């Protein structure tokens, strides 16, 4: 399988703090890659640097053979790099449907139609409902985003990202705060998605990570300290000391 | 030449006194106070009234800013606190309304005549500096500003209060979890900013005139300072007030009418290349 996105000695420093330090990872197409590590290991910063929320201090990000290290956020999204946020980032005053429709409409290039009604674009509406059904929000389309339960809001996060037709989807702790039922839905969704696209996860739920990932990278203090299949990671001594060791110790 | 340089420094000092208060309020409470200029003017008017009723100038320099600070605390509690949770646009609009209101009240109470604070007799006269006669009072203003700024830095760096304030600017949740009443911190910070503006007002009174729109006119330059220097950055504010003070003074000397146009253009150009200001501490919006 080919590599869809890779970073090359990527660094992101805040003053003297090396939040992401010399990280080189490759994400294969149609696979699930998990990035795990203790709190403050730099996982979210890595996501932010890959998706353009933060500029890289050094190193490169390559997507599909193209250097995107300095591309603005919206261009990365256009290429197919979509993400969710650890802290929900929604259009809270709008309905569930509108949240996804705006993303879909942007993706389909219909945003400059200044004289048609925003709700009259049949193809956009249809595609929006398809996505809502996929994440299980079909029945809540007309509810306001800020009245949803936390779990539903997390699902809406994913739906908005999916509306961008991602080639690679980066999920920042997608199941944090979700019930077991909701978590299972997300797992099923990821397993379905990965037949078509690459998925990258930041996750604390180790069981989940081990069960669905094809490859795992372990971060500690800004650096990658181990990489491999779930089995290899479980056996990796350094990883056990730095990360799993911590957990067993408590 | 020396005279022009000193005048540049003088305006810079005034700008710094006012904008540093704005900066602290923004840095800690995330409130952009568009009424700050009016509180500067309020300090000047308090000073004017006290001095014209025979209060000693130095006493007025102490009392008037404290009064302005008190007004600031009350205003913070009454109208800014209730909308703290709302979008920043609302605070901007609200404090804008507040400045219009206060400026209007000046006309109501003190009339819109242009007035001056009586200079203390001990500071009249001039000093011979390298062959140039420079007014004593202006030198006093420079010295006083340096003292106030040093005092402020000491307060922020060395005292427990300063520590709480600095901590509150980065992790307010943590500070309030430690049992510090954030409402009090916000009120205190706002008051402190107003005291600084008040000092600026009294000190400027004998130099520049006292009139209702003085604050709003000053405020524009102060915001330029704030934006150029970088929101929340104290060192940036010092650097930027020197820049703006110099540009504005030179502008008035060489361009008269279009002096402010130069200042605005400078801000536009700097923002074009450094959207977060010269020394931003990454807290911009």
């Amino acid at each position, binding site marked *: 399988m080919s590599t869809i996105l890779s970073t090359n000695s990527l660094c992101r420093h805040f003053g003297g703090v090396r939040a992401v330090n010399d990280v080189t990872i490759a994400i294969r197409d149609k696979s699930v890659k998990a990035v795990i590590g203790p709190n403050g290991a730099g996982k979210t910063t890595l996501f932010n640097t890959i998706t353009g*929320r933060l500029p890289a201090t050094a190193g490169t990000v390559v997507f599909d053979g193209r250097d995107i290290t300095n591309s603005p956020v919206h261009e990365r999204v256009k290429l197919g790099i979509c993400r969710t946020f650890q802290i929900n*980032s*929604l*259009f809270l005053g709008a309905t569930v*449907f509108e949240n996804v429709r705006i993303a879909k409409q942007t993706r389909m290039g219909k945003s400059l139609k*200044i004289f048609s009604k925003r*709700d009259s674009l049949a193809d956009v509406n249809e595609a929006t409902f398809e996505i809502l059904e996929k994440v299980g929000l079909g029945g809540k389309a007309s509810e306001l985003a800020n009245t949803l339960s936390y779990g539903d809001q997390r699902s809406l996060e994913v739906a908005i990202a999916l509306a961008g037709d991602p080639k690679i989807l980066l999920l920042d702790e997608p199941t944090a705060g979700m019930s077991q039922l909701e978590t299972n839905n997300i797992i099923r969704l990821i397993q379905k998605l990965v037949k078509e696209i690459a998925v990258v996860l930041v996750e604390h739920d180790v069981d989940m990570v081990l069960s669905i990932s094809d490859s795992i990278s372990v971060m500690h203090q800004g650096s990658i300290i181990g990489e491999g299949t779930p089995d290899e990671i479980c056996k990796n001594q350094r990883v056990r000391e730095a990360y799993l060791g911590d957990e067993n110790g408590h | 030449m020396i005279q022009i340089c000193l005048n540049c420094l003088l305006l810079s000092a005034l700008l710094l006194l006012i904008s540093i208060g704005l900066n602290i309020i923004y840095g800690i409470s995330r409130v952009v106070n568009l009424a700050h200029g009016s509180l500067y003017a309020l300090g000047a008017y308090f000073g004017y009234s006290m001095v014209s009723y025979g209060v000693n100038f130095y006493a007025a320099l102490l009392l008037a800013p404290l009064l302005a600070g008190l007004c600031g605390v009350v205003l913070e509690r009454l109208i800014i606190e209730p909308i703290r949770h709302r979008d920043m*646009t609302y605070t901007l609009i*609200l404090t804008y309304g507040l400045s219009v209101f206060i400026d209007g009240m000046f006309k109501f109470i003190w009339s819109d005549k242009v007035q001056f604070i009586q200079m203390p007799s001990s500071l009249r006269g001039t000093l011979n500096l390298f062959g140039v006669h420079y007014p004593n009072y202006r030198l006093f203003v420079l010295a006083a500003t340096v003292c106030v700024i040093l005092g402020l830095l000491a307060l922020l760096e060395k005292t427990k209060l300063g520590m709480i304030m600095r901590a509150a600017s980065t992790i307010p949740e943590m500070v309030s979890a430690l049992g510090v009443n954030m409402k009090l911190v916000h009120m205190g910070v706002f008051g402190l900013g107003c005291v600084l503006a008040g000092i600026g007002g009294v000190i400027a009174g004998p130099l520049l005139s006292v009139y209702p729109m003085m604050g709003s006119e000053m405020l524009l330059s102060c915001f330029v300072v704030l934006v150029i220097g970088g929101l929340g950055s104290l060192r940036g504010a010092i650097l930027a007030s020197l820049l703006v003070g110099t540009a504005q003074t030179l502008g008035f000397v060489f361009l008269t009418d279009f002096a402010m*146009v130069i200042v605005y253009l400078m801000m536009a150009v700097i923002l074009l290349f450094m959207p977060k200001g010269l020394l931003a501490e990454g807290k911009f919006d």
Partner: protein
Amino acid sequence: MEKAIGNKKDRKGLVIQALVLLALVLLPFVLGNKFYLRLVTEIIIYGLLAMSLDVLLGFTGLLSFMHAAYMGIGAYTVAVFLSYVDPGASIWVTFPLGIAVTVVLAFAAGWLQVRTGGFAFALLTVAFGMMYYTLVWKARSITCGDDGLCGLPKPDISLGPIVLGNMNDSLTAYFFTLAVVAVCFFVTRRIMHSPFGAVLESIRENTERASFIGINVRNYKLMGWMLACTLAGISGVLFTYMKGSVSPTLMDARAGGIVLMMTLLGGMGTLWGAFIGAAAYIFLQDFISAMTENWMVFLGLAVILLTLFMPKGLADLPIRLGQRLTRQRSNL
């Protein structure tokens, strides 16, 4: 599915707005007094200006403290052209010219402004607004400084060779203004209900998320800004046509505050609210300035109270009333 897409409500609003327009067309035949007709004309012009700020503030979430500057630019462009170039110039020359100059100057400011957001954006509007104001005010040899330009010839309203009337006639002035503003209103309304309007709203709601769904935020902010300034420029052109005079107070900082006040008073994000705001403000100002010279105090107080207690403005009242009526009907 129909319910989620929901476009029924929109049609009802359109009907009501069309009825209000009809009432405005009939107004001069009810209102005998010429003074009041001029006042209503002025309200409609300022309503357009306030509406243009609503596009920026209520839809895109960007604050401009000096929006009146762009009205002033449109007004001064026409005034200067009429005074120095061709006093008899047709509206088909001066109208596009006024818009064109506004658009060029607004683009210069906007291009830089959209690189920022929030507070820095608002501050840059002040910087550029004050800059344009100072240039107009201090260029005494052309603009006559504080005195402004007075006694300008009022243009004929013509459609090709047919002359419909002259702006000197208050009835012509009223109908011309109403026609232009109505077109602007319904076009803007359509644009705000389009997918483009949805993009502007998404930027207001959550700028960061908007860029992460692939929106080029800077470009769209610039487009919103240009739309708002073009409309402001149109209001300026109309102003010169109607008044036959311009002065720097049209575009100073206080004027900027007044527009903001009208938009707030009316209620943001509705477009039509701006007209209610303009009407309320102009009537109030007439009323208060008859009693006291110090109306600044009341303006400031009104802004404070409105932000604290009625952030949605006067437009919220009919909306709430409408909701209550619908609820009652569904209960029956």
